[in-house]
C-alpha cells in the first residue's frame, strides 16, 4: 500500500483529502505545517507528498526546497495541492521542485491520477 503524506494546515481539507485517499486505498499521513512535514518526513518515508503551499511557519515552497536539498528526501515525488493557482504561483511550485500541480478546489479524479502516475514512475525512488 502506497503511503501519502498530506501536508495541509486547513483541517477540513486535510480531512477531505485523507478521506478520498483512504477510499482510494492509500495509506495517509498528515502534517499541519512545513516544519512538521520536515520533522516527520524521514520517519514516514512517504511514496508521495501532497503539499499545500500556503502553510504556516515554513510555506510549501520553502518546505519543498528544503526537502529537495536533503539527499534522503530529494527524490520523493511532491504534488503541489494549492489554491495559489495564479500563473506565477504555479510556475514557482514547479521551479522549486514539485513534480506536479493540482489546483484547489480539488478535482480528485485528476489528483488520484497524478498520484498513481508519480508512484508508478521511475522517479519515485
Amino acid at each position, binding site marked *: 500500500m502506497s503511503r501519502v503524506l498530506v501536508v495541509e494546515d486547513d483541517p477540513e481539507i486535510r480531512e477531505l483529502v485523507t478521506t478520498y485517499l483512504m477510499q482510494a486505498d492509500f495509506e495517509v499521513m498528515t502534517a499541519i505545517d512545513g516544519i512538521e512535514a*520536515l520533522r516527520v518526513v524521514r520517519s514516514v518515508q512517504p511514496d508521495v507528498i501532497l503539499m499545500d503551499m500556503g502553510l504556516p511557519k515554513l510555506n510549501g515552497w520553502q518546505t519543498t526546497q528544503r526537502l529537495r536539498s536533503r539527499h534522503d528526501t530529494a527524490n520523493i515525488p511532491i504534488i503541489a495541492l494549492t*489554491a495559489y493557482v495564479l500563473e506565477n504561483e504555479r510556475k514557482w511550485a514547479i521551479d522549486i521542485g514539485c513534480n506536479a500541480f493540482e489546483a484547489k478546489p480539488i478535482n*480528485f479524479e485528476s489528483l488520484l491520477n497524478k498520484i498513481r502516475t508519480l508512484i508508478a514512475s521511475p522517479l519515485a525512488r
Partner: protein
Amino acid sequence: MLSSNQFFSLRARILLLIVVLLLLLVVVLLLFSNVIIAQSFEQVEQQAVTVRVEQVVNALDNSRSGLLGLALDYAAWDDSYAFVQDGNPEYIELNFRDLSFLIDNNVSYVGFVNRAGEVVYAVAYDHVTESEIAPPAALTSFTGEYAQLLQHEHADGALSGLLLLDELPMLIAAHPILPSIEQGEPAGTLIMGRALDETEVARLAEITRLPFTLARLDAPVLEPLSTQLSTAIAAAQTPNPDSLNPPIITDALNTQTIVGATILPDLLERGGLLLTLELPREVFLLAQNTTRDYTLVLLGAGLLFGVLVWVTLERVVLTRLLRLDRQVQQIDAEHPDVQLDVSGHDEISQLAMAINQMLSRLTLAQLQIINAQRYRQLIELSPDAIVVHDGQQIRYINTAGARLLADSVPPALIGQQLDPLLRAVSAKADGTPVMTDQVFTRADGAQIELELVVLPFPDHELDATQVIMRNITERKQVEKELRLAKVAADAANRAKSQFISTMSHELRTPLTAILGYADLLKSTLSDADNAEALQTLSHIRNAGTHLLAIINDVLDLSKIEAGQMQVHVDQVHVDVLSSNVTDAVRPLAERNGNQIAVRGVDAVGVLQTDEVRLRQILLNLLSNACKFTHNGTITLEVTAIPDAGPDNDLVRFAVHDTGIGIRPEDLARLFQDFVQVDSSTTRKYGGTGLGLALSRRLAQLIGGEITLTSEVGVGSIFTLTVPRTLTAEQLNLTALPTPSPAMLANPLSSPLKPKYVESQIVLVIDDDPAILDLLPRLLAQPNLHFETASDGREGLELAAALLPDLIILDVLLPELDGWSVLHELKQNSETHDIPVLMLTFSPDAQQGLVLGAAGILNKPVDIERVAHAIAAALHGAPAAHDLLLVEDDPDLRGYFRRTLERDGWQVREAESGTVALALLVQQLPALAVIDLMLPGIDGITLIGAIRRMPGGNTLPILVVTAKDLSVEEQVQLNASVEQVLRKGSFHSDELLRNAQALVRWRTPVAPKEQ
C-alpha cells in the same frame, strides 16, 4: 582711388624706364657701332686707295722697267757698240730713220753718248703732237748733275727712274753700251726716255683704269691740294726717312671723293712728281648705308623688345597686381569672409594666398569676436545664475544671478560681498568642475536649494572662480513627489497583486471543502431513498461551481485590469481548436437539445496568437449560445479576411444561435460587468454575468474585438475578430493599463516570490520559556523562521529533522547540557556544518569556540547583539569595513582605493566581474563599489549575479559609472542597487559619504519594534 593712381604711376614709371633704357641702349650701341664701323671702313677705304695708288706706281714702274729692258736690248747690241764708236749713219738709218722705233715703243727720247761724253746721236719725239722735236736740253749736254746718267764707266751699271726735266717729267733708262760678248770697255751710254706727257698719263690711266694726275712739285705755282698732300706726305715720310718708297697717303676730300697721293722721286733727287688719285668713296658710302640699316634694325629690335617687355610685365605683373588691388579694394571691412582669385604659381599668387589667409584669419577673428559677444549674451540671458567672484567680491553676475540671489540687477551687486556659503565652495585647480547642492538663504529669508557648478575662472593675473547656480527647489520638490508617487504606484501595484493572489486563495480554500464534501457526501448517498438529499447536494454542488466560475472570471478581469494577464503567442491550429471547444460545450448543448455545427474551419489554417485566451473566449461564446438556445442549432463559423488591416490578415469566428435573441436597447449594456439582460436570467439560465465582459477584454488583449447582432426570437450572432498574427505592437496596445516602470524593470516584483523561495530556520534550544518566546517574537521575519526546543534531546531531534541554518544553544540545559548537545551536533555529519551560537552566563565561555561553536552570546540576552550575531552567522559575517572595489581602470581604481583607505575602509580590488565574483564567494564585503563598464561580465550582469548569491540580496552596492544610462537602465539600477554616482561629477567626499551612509543604513537583522 589714391592707391590706384599710385599703381597707374607705377605702370607709367615702368613704361618710362623701359623707354629710357631702350633709348640709352640704342644710342650706346649706335655710338659704338658707328665708331667701330667707321674706323674699319676707313681702314678698308685707305687700304683700297693705297692699293690703287700702288697700282699706278707699279704701272709707272712697269713702264720704266720696260724702257730699261728696251735700252738693254739696244745697248748690248754690237751694232750699237760699233755705232757709238764709229758713228756710222747707216745704223741710225736702219734703226731710227723713220722714228717708228720711237712711236712703236712709245719712247720719247733716244740718245747715244760715247765715252767722251759726246752725244753721238739723239732724237726726240713728241707723242702729243706726233712730231719730232728737239731733244731736251739737259739730254744733249749731260752736264752738271745729268752727268750721273752716263754709265759707261760701269760695265755692269744701269740706271733708270724718273727724271724731272725742265720741259717735262720723263722716265729715263741709261745703260752702258757693251759688245754682245761683253768683253771690253763699255763704248758709251745708251739713254732712252719716255715722257710722262698727257698721252702717257692717259695710256697708263687706261691700263690701270685709275684716273690719276701727276703734278710737279717744283712747279712755281702749286695747287693748294697738291701743296697740302705733299706736305702730308713729307710729314708721313719724316718718321721713316730711310724707307725706299715714299709713303702713300689718303685724304677724304668730301663725302663723295677721296684722294690718294704719293711722291714719285726724281732720279737725281731733285724733288719729285706728286701722284694724285681721286676716287669715289664707295666704301665710305657702303659704310654709311650699313650704319643706317643697322641703326634702323637696332631701333626696330629695341622697339620690339621694349614692347615685348612691356606686354610681359603688363600681363605677368601689372594687370594681376591691379586686379588684386581692385579685389582688395572691394572687400567690405565688416564682411571679410571672401577670398581673392588666385591664378598662377608665383609671388603674386603667393601674395594673393597670403591675403586670403589673412582674410580667413580676419574672418575667424571677427567670428570669435561675434561668438564672444554671443556667448556673453548667452551668459547674460542664461536662465542659470552665473557669478564670477575673486573669493570675496562679486566680479561679474548675470541677470538671472542677480535675480536669484537678491531680486536685484547686476550693477547693484557687482563689487558687493558674495555670500560666504557660496564663496566657500572652491574650484579645483585642474579645471574639473566641482558639483554640489547647497541650501541657500536669500536676502528675503526664503530658503532655496541650489545646484552649484564651480569652476576656476582665470582672469588675467586674478584667480577668480566661476559659480553656476540653478535653483532646483522646485525640481527637488517635483522629484520628491515623483518618487513618492512611484513608491505609491509600486505599492498599489503590489497591493493589487497581493489582493488578487490572496482573494483567489482565500475563496478557493472554503470552496474546496464545500465542493469536496458535497461530492464526498454524494458518493456515500448513492441510494434511491436519498433522492431529496441528493437533489440538495446537487444544488450545493452547482452553487459552488457557479461561485468558482465567478471567482475565476473576476480573477481574470482583475488580472487584465492590473495589467498582469500575460499573453503567450504561439501557433494555433484552428481546426484542432474548434473541435476542442465544440467537444467541450457539446454536453451543455445537448442538455438543451441543441445541435452544434462547424463551418469553414479547415480553410483557415494556423493563427499566431494566445491559444488559452482564444479558447476561453470561444468557450464563453459557445456556452452562452448553448445556454440561451433550446432545441436549436449553434454554429461556429470561421472565416479568414485577407488584407483587412495594415499588413495583417484577420480571422473571424462567428457564433450563430437560434436562441431568444436580445433586444436592441439591451445590446449596449450587454458587455458591462455583471450584466445579464434580465437579472432573472441569471436564475433561469445560470452564468456569472461576467462572461461577455471578460470575453471582450480578452479579445482586446489578443488584439481582437467582439461584435454582436441579434434579433429577438430569431437568434444572435456573436462575432470575434482577431488578427491572424498577434504582433508585439498590438500586445503593447492591448496591455492595459500600462504596467509601472518598476514592474517592467523587474516583472517578478510581485512580493510573493522572494519570501517563498528564501527561508532560513533558526533553532533555539533553551529551557528558559522567556527566551523561547522572546527571540522568535522579536526577530522572526518572513524569511527567517524560529523553531524552539526546550531541552537537549528535543533540540538534537529537531536539528536532525529540520537541518536548521543556525542553532542558538543554551549551555545550561537539564539532562543533556549545551556542550554535550554541541558535541553531538558536531559528531553528526548532517548537522556538523550548522553554525551554533552558545548562550551562557559564564563570562569565560570562550572554550566553546574550541568545541566548534560559531560564537558566544552572553546572558542576559542583548537582543541587538543577538540580531547582529544571527545576521553575521547567516550572511557570512562581513567585516565592518571590508569593501570590494570593482573597477577596470587601474588609475581610477588606485585613486578610489587611496581615497577609501584614508577613510578607514579595507579595500579589496577586482579589475573584472569574474575576479569580483571570486572575491565575493570568499567573503561577502560590507559594501561593493562597482563600475558598470567592465570587461567580460559587465556591471549590470555582475550586480544581478550578486543579488542571486546567498546573502548577496542584502549587500549594499554603490555604482560608480561614466556611462550614459538609458531610462530603462536607470530604472533597473535604481531597483537593484542602493546608490548610483556619476563619474566626473562627484567629489571624493561624496563617495565617502555615500559609502558610510550605505553601511550605516544596513542593519543586518532589524529587531522588530516593540
